Structure formats: C-alpha cells, structure tokens
C-alpha cells in the first residue's frame, strides 16, 4: 500500500520478460563499488529486477576501493571495480569465498576521452607526449607549436590552457595516468595512481565535476568517460601513425587484444590493457571495470542471485541496454564466451 506507484506495476509486468525460473529467486543481492559503471549498472539493475522482481537488488556506487573492501569483508555480494584485485586482496577475497576461487569479469569497457573547451575547435589530434605535457603544465597555451604541428587545419587561439583533473580517488585517473605513464614514458614519469599524482592545478570532483568545470571554462581540458563529453571538443589520440577518436568499438577492440594478467585463477579474467597498441581502430585510453565475485558462495540463494545477475549482465540484451544508457562499449563475443564459463561455474558450498 505504501509502495511507489511504479513499483506495484513493476512486479506485475516483470514476469513478462522473465524466464520460468524467475519466481524461484528471492532474497537480496548487494553490490558495491565503481562509480564509473553506475549508469550501466542502472540499466542492468532495471533489467534484472524486471526478470526477478522478488530479489532485493542494490548497488552502492561508492568507489572501486570501497567495493572491493565491502566484497572482501562480506558486506557486498559482489564488487564493481575499475581495477582488478591485487595480490593481497586476492588472498583475502579467496578467504571470503570459503577458500574458493574468485571471478573477475571485465564487463564494463569505456573509452576515456580527452575533452576540451575551445571555441571553434571540435576536434584535435594529440600525441601522448603532447597530452602529458599539457597535463603536467609544460604546454600552457593552445597555440603551442606542439599542438599546432598535429593540427594544421585548426585555428588555435592563444588562450591559456587550464588542465582539469579529478579531485577524488578514481579509476578514470588511474587508467589515464597509466596510459600516460606507458605511452609517454619520457615525459610522464609519475606512477599510475587513482589519486592525481601532481601537485597544484585545477581539480574537480567526479566525472560530472570535471565536465562541468570544463564546460564553464574556456581553454580547459580534462579526461573523462567519453559518453559524458557531451558538447565538448574531443581529442583524437595518436595510435601508431594514426589519430583515433574515442569510440565504443575502438575501446572494445583494444581490450580484446590485451593480454591477461599472469598467474590468476581459472575464472579470473583480469587483463593488462595494451596501452602501446599500434593496431588500427584501437583506442588505448580505456577504462575497464570488473565485476568481482565468488565462484562458490556459502548460501544457495546468494549463489543463484549472483549467477542470475551476471548472466543477465553478459547477455546481449544486458550489454545492449547498458550501452544505450551509459554509452559504453559492449563486450565482444570472445569476452562473453569467456565470462559465460565463469558464470556457469557459480555454485553454493555444500
């Protein structure tokens, strides 16, 4: 009687899209972690709740670190994380999973755009070194020869460059600095880190924060999830001899061709993104966000719920809805097959 009007009707129509097993699932499913995949998660959640209306689903986008921690200490059933578990975490996670294995599925892939606000300029070609020099403050005006060299057609004003970075600890920053660290090693010496490694400069909270600042500040430039760049200008990044624009396809392509991390479990598909790729149509500034969970849960209900959710996430339907809402790249069939194996393996102990 006290429910929202959409919730009552939700459970009615929900059975329409669901399978026969839908009615069997109940209880709760708690996820926590990366905020980067929040938009996609919304779509997955909606779809999942449509199929399994009796499952109490929640996902707290409190950050990857928080997600991993909550997964490890048991307050979350699965984590969303922009980074794979490190060794230490892996041990702890395995303990949490009754000594069993952990799955890590790269289910959310999204290109990071280098976005800027410059009147009359919608597109720029930038090399990794130029990007690094802009963000470390070496290049201070837009008409700098280093930029002009790659952009013969553009009319570059003498406007000062205001580089804007994330103020919070973020997976986007980690992936972006990892890219700079690898692709522009001689200019960018700082280690990859979720916290912006340089002192000073303009900073803002969250993806929407940096976008907001750049939108309001002429001459500003930042890095952000490509789907959120909106009206801002977006740079093409040098890959080999080409300049590649950020696109879901280009992002998915680079992930598919990246090597797996060595020495992980059977269902642990942590990858090492190939930032130095020279492949055509591959965009190396990409963020990969994982879903992390146990292969074996203590509790049958949990196992069923996680399994059902992951099934939906990697399904074509799930990937398509997410892409529509979040603008991310859909996983390739290869990745899906890989993931399906893991999802099928999820069971309850005993």
């Amino acid at each position, binding site marked *: 009687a006290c429910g929202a009007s959409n919730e009552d009707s939700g459970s009615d129509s929900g059975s329409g899209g669901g399978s026969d097993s839908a009615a069997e699932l109940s209880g709760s499913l708690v996820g926590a972690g990366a905020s980067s995949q929040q938009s996609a998660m919304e779509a997955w959640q909606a779809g999942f709740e449509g199929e399994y209306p009796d499952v109490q689903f929640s996902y707290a986008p*409190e*950050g*990857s*670190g*928080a997600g*991993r*921690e909550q997964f490890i200490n048991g307050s979350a059933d699965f984590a969303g994380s922009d980074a794979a578990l490190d060794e230490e975490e892996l041990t702890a996670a395995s303990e949490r999973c009754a000594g069993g294995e952990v799955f890590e599925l790269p289910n959310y892939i999204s290109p990071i755009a280098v976005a800027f606000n410059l009147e009359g300029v919608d597109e720029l070609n930038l090399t990794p070194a130029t990007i690094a020099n802009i963000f470390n403050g070496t290049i201070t005006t837009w008409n700098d020869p280093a930029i002009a060299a790659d952009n013969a057609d553009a009319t570059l004003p003498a406007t*000062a460059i*205001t580089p*804007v970075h994330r*103020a*919070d*600890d*973020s997976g986007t920053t980690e992936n972006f600095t990892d890219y700079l660290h690898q692709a522009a090693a001689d200019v960018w010496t700082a280690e990859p880190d*979720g*916290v*912006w490694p340089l*002192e*000073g*400069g*303009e*900073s*803002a*909270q969250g993806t929407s*924060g940096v976008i*907001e*600042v750049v939108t*309001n*500040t*002429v*001459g*500003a430039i930042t890095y952000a999830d490509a789907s959120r760049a909106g009206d801002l200008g977006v740079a093409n990044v040098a890959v080999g001899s080409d300049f590649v624009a950020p696109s879901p396809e280009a992002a998915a392509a680079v992930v598919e061709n990246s090597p797996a991390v060595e020495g992980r479990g059977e269902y642990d598909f942590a990858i090492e993104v190939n930032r130095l790729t020279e492949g055509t149509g591959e965009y190396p500034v990409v963020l990969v966000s994982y879903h992390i969970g146990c292969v074996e849960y203590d509790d049958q209900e949990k196992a069923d719920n996680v399994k059902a959710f992951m099934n939906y996430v990697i399904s074509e339907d799930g990937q398509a809805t997410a892409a529509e809402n979040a603008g991310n790249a859909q996983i390739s069939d290869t990745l899906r097959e890989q993931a399906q194996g893991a999802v099928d393996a999820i069971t309850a102990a005993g």
Partner: protein
Amino acid sequence: MTATKAPTEPPAQQRTVRRPGDRIFSGAAKGSGIFILLVLAGVAAFLISEALPALTAPSDEIPGGEGLAGYVGPLILGTLLGAVIALIVATPLAVAIALYITYYAPRRIAAPMGYVIDLLAAIPSVVYGFWGLAVLAPELVPFHTWLADTLGFIPFFAGPASTSGRTMLTVGIVLAVMILPIISAISREVFSQAPALHREAALALGATRWEMIKMAVLPYGKSGIIAGAMLGLGRALGETMAVAIILSGGAGATVNLISNSNPSTIASNIALSFPEATGIDVNTLIASGLALFLITLAVNMLARWVVNRRADFSGAN
C-alpha cells in the same frame, strides 16, 4: 565574617527535600547532559583509536610520503582559510540582517523577511555545491582577476587568478552564505528579546536608533551573536559536500586565495578520498578528522574565554 562558618555548615541545598517528580525530571535532564558527553567521548575514542595507526606509522607510508604533518598541514590551513573567510564575511552581514529585520524593516515585511533568510538554511549543501560550481564561481572570475591585478601584492591575492573561479575565496563566500542564516537566526532571536526597558532608557536619553542599538541591543545580544558565530564556524569548518564540489583543491600549503591551486579542507578531503581509501590511508584520513576535532576544541575555548571575560556585564538578569 563567614569564613569560619562556611566550611562547617553544609550548603542549604544539600539538605533540601526533593519530591519524586523533581528528582526524576532533574535526573533525566542531567542524564541527557551526561549522555551527550558520552557520545562525544565515543566520537573522540573512535577518532583516536582509528587515527592511532597513522600517528605511529613511518612517514613514508602516509599518502604523499611526507609524513602525517605534511599530509594534514595543508588541509588544516585550507580548512581554517575557508572557515575564517566565511566567518569574516558572514558575521557582520548576519548581524546587519538581524538588525534590519528586528529594528529597521517595516513591521509588516520583517517577519516574512526573516523567514526568507531562514530558507537559506534549508538548502542542502549539495545544492550549494552545484550552485557554487555552476553559478557563483564563473561569476566571480572577473573579481578574481581584479583582485590579482590590484591587490596582487598581498600574499592572499598573489594570483595568478583562477580561470574557473573555484578557489578558496569562492568557497569562503559560499560557506558564508551557508552559515548566514544560522548566525542571523540566533542574533535575531536575541535582538528581538532585548528588553524594552533598556531600549526605552536609551531612547529617552536622546539616542538615535543606531545609538539605542549600540547601547541596549548589541551588548545584550553579544553572547547570542557569539553563540551563533560559533555554530556557524562549526558548520563552516566541517562542511563537506559543498566544498568537495566547488573547491579546486589538492595543492600544498598556500595562503593564495584566488589561484586554481588550493589546499583542500579536511572534511572535503575525507569525503573525496574515503571511498577509495584502504589500510593506512583510512587511518590517515581519520587522523585528519581528529585534527579538525582539535581545531574546533581550540576555537571553542577561545570563544568561551571571550564570552566569559565580561560575564558580569551580560544582559541576563
């Protein structure tokens, strides 16, 4: 004359018979007070126990690699800068507003005016954050440039002026707006209670309205103003979301208020870093929270000292 007697004679109150109702009620009142102390002790215990690992950790394990002082120092500076700007801007404004509403505004519009100002307190800090980011900061960019050009010789305005306006100065102003209703509501309350007896005494001596206020209203309301300012300062020191959203922080210690590199504040830094923090990072953040706690303690001691200095002359009774 009583010096010899007083110690042997127990105070009258101790012999006093008290009825059950009184005992229960005063017990409940006292219990509540003690409960508050316990809560505070709980918070302090929580802060100290969680901060301890960071306090004892070697300095290269603390984020930034320069030790706890190196990490927390700039944050303390940022916190104080923002809060002090807020207090300096807000207190005179709030007192003026309270005076305007109680003694200047036409009576019919005074009450709605007070109400409208109270509304400012109702706006959640997230909204302040986005207003500050989207509306105020861009508006203040020219002001920043002007400050850098004309007052650049003062270290506070050394510049270079921020191009986005998301500076400590802007944060201070937003915080001022946030604490304005707190200070003005309490000031208003005490101003309006300034006894007519004393106001009329002043007027009858031929005081103008302002002189009447100086003689009979402000002294009476002083402790109220200070109480309000302290509440406001508490809020400004601890404000989290608005600062996190507006401030372009993360720089080291600088008193430059108008550049795009600003020290962060303790509270906003906790909010920004906590979700992704693990291990010693968490302890470090909580240690910074402990520092904030100690600052509040110091500020309050100072305020109390100021208020008590002339307690004999306070308006009460």
